């Protein structure tokens, strides 16, 4: 039973690209070592909404992880230990993704049945969409 998580973390704005890449690759290898998969995205330097560790901006990195909870726990521990990381958040995404898929499926099914009288679906669709979200 694999779960999917997103770990977003912020590193100090003065961190060099080289070090950042090294950090990301070590994190990724720790995930893959534990039997999971990881994918990272560097958002780049962004302004923070409030001061964090006396920094006004930081480099945002998003990491998508698939695996068990223990892998994420390990990644979090590493992030906590790393001094350049000033903030991080973990969000579990698999349940949300599942729900989105379900909604999409429902919507597609509805579209197929009402594909013929699709001339004026505008007043109908908002109402039709409401039950799916509930």
């Amino acid at each position, binding site marked *: 039973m694999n779960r999917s998580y997103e770990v977003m973390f912020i590193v100090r704005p003065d961190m060099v690209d080289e070090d950042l890449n090294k950090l990301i690759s070590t994190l990724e290898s720790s995930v893959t070592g534990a039997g999971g998969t990881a994918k990272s995205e560097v958002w780049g330097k962004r302004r923070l*909404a*409030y001061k964090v560790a006396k920094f*006004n901006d930081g480099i945002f990195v998003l990491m998508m992880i698939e695996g068990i909870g223990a892998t994420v726990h390990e990644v979090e521990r590493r992030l906590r230990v790393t001094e350049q990381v000033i903030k*991080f958040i973990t969000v579990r995404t698999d349940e949300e993704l599942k729900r989105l898929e379900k*909604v999409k499926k429902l919507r597609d099914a509805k579209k197929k049945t009402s594909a013929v009288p699709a001339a004026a679906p505008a007043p109908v669709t908002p109402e039709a969409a409401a039950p799916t*979200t509930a």
Partner: protein
Amino acid sequence: MADETRAASAPEGGGGASRPEGRSDRGGDRGGPRGPRPGGGPGGSREGGRKYFRRKKVCKFCVEKIEAVNYKDVRLLVQFVAESGKITPRRLTGVCTPHQRRLSKAIKQARNIALLPFAGRAQ
């Protein structure tokens, strides 16, 4: 001359003025799915026959079919955060309950990772 203009402008101001409300312009088309409903709150005919029509608010997420309310989508979230940093209540934005629930969760997550401010405007 002066009398005439005053007489002409008075009924216009009384009848045509829709009350400028917080964020009612966001809801999209007037009426929404259930058709236009005049007067969510009647202005009452007490004050010199002043009437206004309140537009029926609709949930932005239902109308535009935005299902994924994500903490990373700051541009979407700021629309539902007041200038002070507070989450705008449903009664002002018209967002439906299930979507408001997800929205508030996303806003709180975004605050946690410094994408949105806890209080005040982002620096």
